[in-house]
C-alpha cells in the first residue's frame, strides 16, 4: 500500500530538502556502524569456510541454537497465553491499579539483566518461593530448560505486553461495542473482532519478545548455565577456545536469527493490513 507520508529514498535527492539530507547523513552513522559490524564478522568467517562448516556441523552448536530458539518459542507461547489477556485488560480498563501493573511489567526494561537474573533465581531456585513447591512436583529450574524459559520470559514480557496492549487500544471500542449489541459475548467480540484487528501487533509483540528472549545472556546464566543457550556457549568458547571459535558460533547465530526474522516478515507481510486503518 502506498503511503503518501513516505518518500522514496531517491526522490529526496531530486527535490533537495536540507533537513532530510542532514538527517540522513546523521542517521547513516548508525547504519554504517551496524553494517561494519556485520561486514567484519562476515568477512572474517568467510575467510576460513572449512572452519565455519566444522563449527556449523558441531552437534553441541546445533543443539545450543535449537535450544535457544525452542526456549524462545516457549516464551512466545506463554506470552500469547498469559500476556494477551493481560494486555487486553490493560487496554480496556482505566483503573488506578493499571499504572502499578504496567510499572511491574516494565521493571525488566530498567534493570541490569544480572539483577533480573538474580530476581528470577531467587524466585525459582530450589528453595525459592515458587521453585520449592514446583520442585516437589518434579519441575526443577536450576540448570534446566524451565529456568532458561523463566529468565527469558521475565526479560521479554514488557516487549510483548506493551506492543499488544497498544494494538488492542487501537481497535476502536465502538467496533467492539457494536459486535456485542449484535449478539457476540465479550469473549467472542474479542476473538472475532479485536484479535483480527490487532493481529499485526500480536505478531510484532511475539517477534520482539522472541528476539529479546533468544538474545538474553546474563539473566539466563544466573539460573541455568547449563544446558547452554547460544549466548552462554559463545561466552564459554570465548573464554576457553578464544575469539575464532566463539565468533564462528556468533556468525551462525546471526545467519539463523536473520533468516527466521526474514521468513516471518515475508510470510506475514499482509497479516492484519487493516491494523493501521481501523
Amino acid at each position, binding site marked *: 500500500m502506498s503511503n503518501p507520508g513516505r518518500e522514496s529514498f531517491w526522490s529526496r535527492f531530486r527535490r533537495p530538502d536540507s533537513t532530510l539530507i542532514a538527517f540522513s547523513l546523521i542517521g547513516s552513522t548508525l547504519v554504517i556502524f551496524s553494517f561494519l559490524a556485520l561486514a567484519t564478522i562476515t568477512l572474517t568467517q568467510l575467510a576460513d569456510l572449512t572452519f565455519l562448516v566444522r563449527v556449523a556441523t558441531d552437534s553441541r552448536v546445533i543443539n545450543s541454537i535449537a535450544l535457544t530458539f525452542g526456549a524462545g518459542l516457549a516464551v512466545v507461547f506463554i506470552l500469547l497465553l498469559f500476556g494477551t489477556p493481560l494486555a487486553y485488560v490493560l487496554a480496556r480498563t482505566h483503573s488506578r491499579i493499571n499504572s502499578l501493573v504496567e510499572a511491574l511489567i516494565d521493571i525488566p526494561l530498567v534493570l541490569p539483566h544480572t539483577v533480573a537474573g538474580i530476581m528470577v533465581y531467587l524466585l525459582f531456585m530450589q528453595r525459592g518461593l515458587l521453585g520449592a513447591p514446583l520442585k516437589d512436583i518434579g519441575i526443577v529450574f536450576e540448570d534446566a530448560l524451565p529456568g532458561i524459559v523463566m529468565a527469558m520470559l521475565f526479560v521479554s514480557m514488557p516487549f510483548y505486553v506493551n506492543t499488544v496492549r497498544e494494538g488492542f487500544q487501537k481497535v476502536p471500542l465502538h467496533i467492539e461495542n457494536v459486535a456485542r449489541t*449484535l449478539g457476540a459475548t465479550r469473549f467472542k467480540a474479542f476473538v472475532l473482532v479485536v484479535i483480527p*484487528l490487532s493481529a499485526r501487533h500480536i505478531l510484532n509483540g511475539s517477534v520482539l519478545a522472541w528476539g529479546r528472549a533468544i538474545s538474553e545472556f546474563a539473566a539466563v546464566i544466573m539460573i541455568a548455565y547449563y544446558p547452554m543457550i547460544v549466548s552462554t556457549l559463545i561466552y564459554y568458547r570465548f573464554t576457553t577456545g578464544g575469539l575464532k571459535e566463539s565468533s564462528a558460533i556468533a556468525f551462525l547465530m546471526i545467519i539463523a536469527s536473520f533468516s527466521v526474522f526474514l521468513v516471518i516478515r515475508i510470510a506475514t507481510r499482509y497479516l492484519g493490513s*487493516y491494523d493501521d486503518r481501523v
Partner: protein
Amino acid sequence: MIEFDRVGLALGEFSLKDISFTVRGGEYFFIIGPSGAGKTIILEAIAGLHVPDTGRILLSGKDVSTIPPEQRGVGLVYQDYSLFPHMTVEKNIAFGLRMHHLPSSEIQRRVEELLSRFGIFHLRSRETLNLSGGEMQRVALARALAIDPQILLLDEPLSALDPGMKEYFIQVLKEIHRDNGLTIIQVSHNRHEILSLGTRMALIMDGRLEQEGSVRQVYASPATREVAEFIGYENVIDGVVVSSGDGECLIDASGLKLRASCTVPAGQGVTFCIGADEVVLHSPQASLSGKDNTVQGMVNAITQSGYLTRVVIDAGATLSAVIVREMADEMALRVGSPVLLTIRKNAIRMIGK
C-alpha cells in the same frame, strides 16, 4: 417501552445524574444536548454497554440493568458506523445472524434481502473501508436491522453525510421506523432531523435531563434559557410584563415592547424566545397595519450564510432575523439602515411557563 428510572452512572470525570425518562414503544425519540452531555452514554446504557451505578433501566417493564448487550437485542449505529474493517459488506451484515446461530441458508436469505433493501447488493463482496459515507451508513443500518431488533439506537448517524445524502437518509429512517414498527432513539444536534423525524425528545445537559416532551411541546415552550438556546432560538430575551389580561400581556425588554400570549401578571420578570425566522423584516416605508407587533429598528450587522442572510437588529433589545438572500438584496439592507420588523404574538414563546 424503555424506561430510565433515576439512573446514575459515573464514568471517570463524567456522570449521568438521576436521569428519568420514558420512551414508549414505536416512538421516534430524540436525545439532544451539547457535546459531552452524556447522550452517547445513555444510548450505550440502553444497549447494555454500561451498568448503572444507581437506578434501573427497564425494557418492556423488565429490569435489564445488569443484562449484557448480547442478550438485549438492541441495534446500535454509531456516528462513525463502526463497520468491521476485516470483513466484507456481506459478512458485516451477517455477523449478528451468525452470533444468533441462524442456519446458513437463512443467514444468506436475510443478508440478500437487506442488501437489496438498502440498494447495496453490488457492494456485497467489497471491503468496508473503501466505501463512501453513504454506503457505509447503509451497511451499518442493514447490519443493525439484521438481528430484527425491537429498539434501534442511532448515535448522530447523519452528521458525517453531505446534505443530499442526509435528506435521503431522513426518508430511509422514516421508512424503517414505519415499516419495522421500531422504537428508534436517535442522538442528534440537527433541528431539521428532529423536526422531520421525531415524535418526542429529551434534552440532556451536563449529565442532567433538562426537559422531556413531545417535539412540538419542547420547541413551543423550552424549559430553560439553555434549552431554548440549544434548540436553536437565537433570540432569548429578558423582560418585564407591563400589563396583562385576557391571555395576553405587554412585555418591555430594554425598550422593545412586544405583545405576547401569556398569563404572567404585570410587574413580573419573564424570559422569552423568538425564532430568528419569526422576526420578519420589512422596508421602513411598508404599511403594516393589523400586524401583532411592529417594531422599528436599525441594522447592526449582516452576515451571509449560504442562501440565507442573518441580520442583527437593534430594536431596544438586540434581535436576530434570518431572511433569504434575495430578499435581503431587494431590501438593500446596509449596516446602519433603518428597518421595520414584525413579530407574531404566537411566535413569542415564554420560557419555563
